[in-house]
């Protein structure tokens, strides 16, 4: 178990390094922030001053060395736009993204497990059809379009929910509902198919022959063993939600890390982009460890 986590740590660290180097140099190629940040009538002198102030005048390699040295002291540099530490901005954004992702994933997992199990229990039944329709829609509809149609119906026509922003509970409903659809469609299918294969195993047949009640049979005997592949998909989807809520956050004006990332890229706020990527990578790494531990809890064979 510890060996597994150790291997994972090394692999993650490596891809993190590659990612950091790549984004550092690529982002510096996208354009000169001095031109972008200063007004159009800024003189060459002012631009030069700006570059010196932010260390942009030095050779790229030197900038990179300095960046890595600072990073080792947990200094991610300042945001160019807001003149505040980049790490603070990212952590503030996470304070919004994390509850959004956690709450949505909780709903997704609960609904997917219950509906997927019921669908597998009676193939071709009502739940089975419901599941196949929702997962097809989830796989086919672009989330920005679902978001826009949802705003059109629930905010503009019916006036039930606010269009964007944060502040009240109602502001959370639409982003969560839109984020819900795709992971739900994917996870519910995995639940269904792994429950189907678990159902034909000997211990489930034994339990059924013993006369175990249906609900107990589904949720206690079959589910525990059918959960392993489900957990893998849950991990993938949760990771996607941590860095992929960009579109939903942009549309609903939700001040999370996805919106911060895309805004910083468009404004060439390098330090914030890098800080956001690094923090996200660490968050995904921690989540993968949690998932490994969950494997161990569910399946004693992995613990050894």
């Amino acid at each position, binding site marked *: 178990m510890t060996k597994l986590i150790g291997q994972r740590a090394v692999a993650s660290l490596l*891809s993190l390094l*590659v*990612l950091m180097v790549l*984004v550092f140099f*690529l*982002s510096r*190629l*996208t*354009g000169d922030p001095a031109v972008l940040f200063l007004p159009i009538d800024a003189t060459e002198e002012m631009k030069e001053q700006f570059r010196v102030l932010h260390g942009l005048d030095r050779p790229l390699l030197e900038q990179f060395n300095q960046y890595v040295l600072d990073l080792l002291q947990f200094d991610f540099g300042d945001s160019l736009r807001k003149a505040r530490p980049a790490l603070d901005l990212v952590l503030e954004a996470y304070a919004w993204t994390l509850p959004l992702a956690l709450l949505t994933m909780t709903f997704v997992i609960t609904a997917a497990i219950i509906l997927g199990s019921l669908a597998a229990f009676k193939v071709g039944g009502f739940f089975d059809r419901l599941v196949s329709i929702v997962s*097809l829609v989830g*796989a*086919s*509809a*672009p*989330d*920005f*379009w679902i978001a*826009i*149609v949802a*705003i*059109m119906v629930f905010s*503009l026509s019916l006036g039930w929910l606010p269009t964007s922003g944060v502040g009240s509970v109602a502001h959370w409903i639409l982003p969560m509902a839109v984020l819900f659809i795709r992971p739900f469609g994917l996870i519910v299918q995995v639940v269904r198919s792994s429950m189907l294969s678990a159902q034909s195993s000997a211990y489930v047949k034994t339990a059924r022959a013993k006369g175990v009640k249906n609900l107990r049979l589904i949720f206690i005997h079959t589910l525990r063993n059918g959960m392993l592949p489900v957990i893998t998909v849950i991990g993938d989807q949760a990771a996607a939600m941590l*860095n*992929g809520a*960009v*579109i939903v956050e*942009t549309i609903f004006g939700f001040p999370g890390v996805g919106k911060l*990332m*895309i805004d910083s*890229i*468009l404004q060439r706020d390098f330090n914030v982009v890098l800080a956001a*990527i690094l923090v*996200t990578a660490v968050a995904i790494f921690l989540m993968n460890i949690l998932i490994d531990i969950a494997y161990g809890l569910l399946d004693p064979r992995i613990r050894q």
Partner: protein
Amino acid sequence: MSQASLAKPPRSAEKSAAATVLSMLWRDKLAFVSVIVLLFVFLCALLGPALLGDLATDQNLRGRNSPPFDLSRGWAFVLGGDALGRPMLARLIYAARSTMLVAAGAVIASLIVGALFGLVAGYMGKTVSQVIMRLADVIMSFPSLLIAVVVLYVLGPSILNMILVLAITRIPIYLRTTRAEVLEVRERMFVQAAIVMGASHWRIIGRHILPQVAPTLITIATLDFAFVMLAESSLSFLGIGIQPPDVTWGLMVSQGRPYLGNAWWLAFWPGLCIVITTLALNLLSNWMRVALDPAQRWRLEARSTTDE
């Protein structure tokens, strides 16, 4: 690259391969409708811009945001007019071309490169395979949307760059599948026999391995076409994909967003086009998974004999 030649039944000589595929398709109504829809979309993309002429670009300020289902302005305005008074229907057909071009380009490019490297990785020794697989891992570990954003910003957002970016992020899918299948097929008796008989590497790969792997790849490519379309429309929606005057369905949704309150059709129709096309692709790929797999095809063929 016709489906018919790939799905050719090995021994049945009564019906031609194309007829078999067609009758199998006819049995599954959902898949049949999907094919019709996709053919229609491809025809629109291919011929639409030439047939429409200037209809899709002519501005008409009197027809600004004119509501849909009103035929007083002519058939082109049946889905309404956009913010510059251009007919939505013509715009949708016009946008189909760029949408399809980006998706098809990315899928074909990643399919060819991925399958090629996958064949090499599966067929060659361990070292080559290890290097290729680690490279694929690196690509997979990137948050693809983010990489796309950065690369598009560096290279500038054009159709060719979109294809490039999307293709790179999708290569590992084909690479891994091809390699896994090659590793399995390589050990089978007919490949071993070909090796013993002294067939060249190219002959073994081309005549014996590739035909076994191709159906899986085509099924994945169909599914991936939908995924790439969604990715392209997301990028265009965020404003870092296709740029006007080029237009794709994703971009049209984003252009219609400011008018949500007074002209819902601007954002609704292009999104619906995306949904219908991806839905058709998903259904078709579900059908292909069964139809192109010799071990499962009897399900469809058996049904066609019992039905009649």
